[in-house]
């Protein structure tokens, strides 16, 4: 049952990633694209977690943690760059 729900979750998250990629390509403003990238990172973390359950290994969680940190830092750096013109003043 867990395997079946993992497959369903992988399909649903892949659809979500496609919707994010649509917003990333279409988005009228730069901030829409930043928001789409942030959501894309969260979806990637969910994919990593589901694949970790699927393969019965805890090895992928360090990758998920690193993804979370890099995603947050890139979002904040993008916003600071758009607001102030540079990242570190």
């Amino acid at each position, binding site marked *: 049952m867990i395997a079946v729900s993992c497959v369903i979750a992988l399909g*649903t998250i892949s659809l979500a990633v496609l*919707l994010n990629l649509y917003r990333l390509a279409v988005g009228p403003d730069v901030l829409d694209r930043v928001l789409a990238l942030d959501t894309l990172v969260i979806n990637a973390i969910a994919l990593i*977690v589901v694949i970790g359950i699927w393969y019965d290994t805890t090895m992928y969680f360090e990758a998920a943690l690193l993804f979370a940190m890099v995603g947050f830092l890139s979002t904040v750096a993008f916003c600071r760059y758009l607001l102030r013109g540079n990242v570190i003043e």
Partner: protein
Amino acid sequence: MGWFGEVLVSALILIGAFFLFVGSFGLAKLPDMMRRLHAPTKSTTLGIGSMLIASMFYFFFFFGDPSVHELLITLFLFLTAPVSAHMIAKAHILRHQRTRDELSSTGRPVGWATLDSALPRKNPRPRHTATKGQS
């Protein structure tokens, strides 16, 4: 314990996938930037939290070792999602004049905190105190 853990983990995985899909669908569907900000930052955070709890229960029920990595990821994501949403909203308000004009008044002598340092003041403070706190 076996079937209970299986049902619990499967339900949590499906709930998490549903909320992740709802967040991304709202990101693609909603018409305005400020309305578009709601869907990913709330629904997606709930979905990823449910997914990480499912993973924690899975490794606790079937392998017997409760792992702490999921708790770390959950804590980090739940701390950083409001911060990044606030940064994006602030950047959106400050970048667009029309959004800035549509803001209602705060009803207090002080204006909006986001705009207070960006717009010229009525009584400007000395320059070194006005820019000291922002780094």
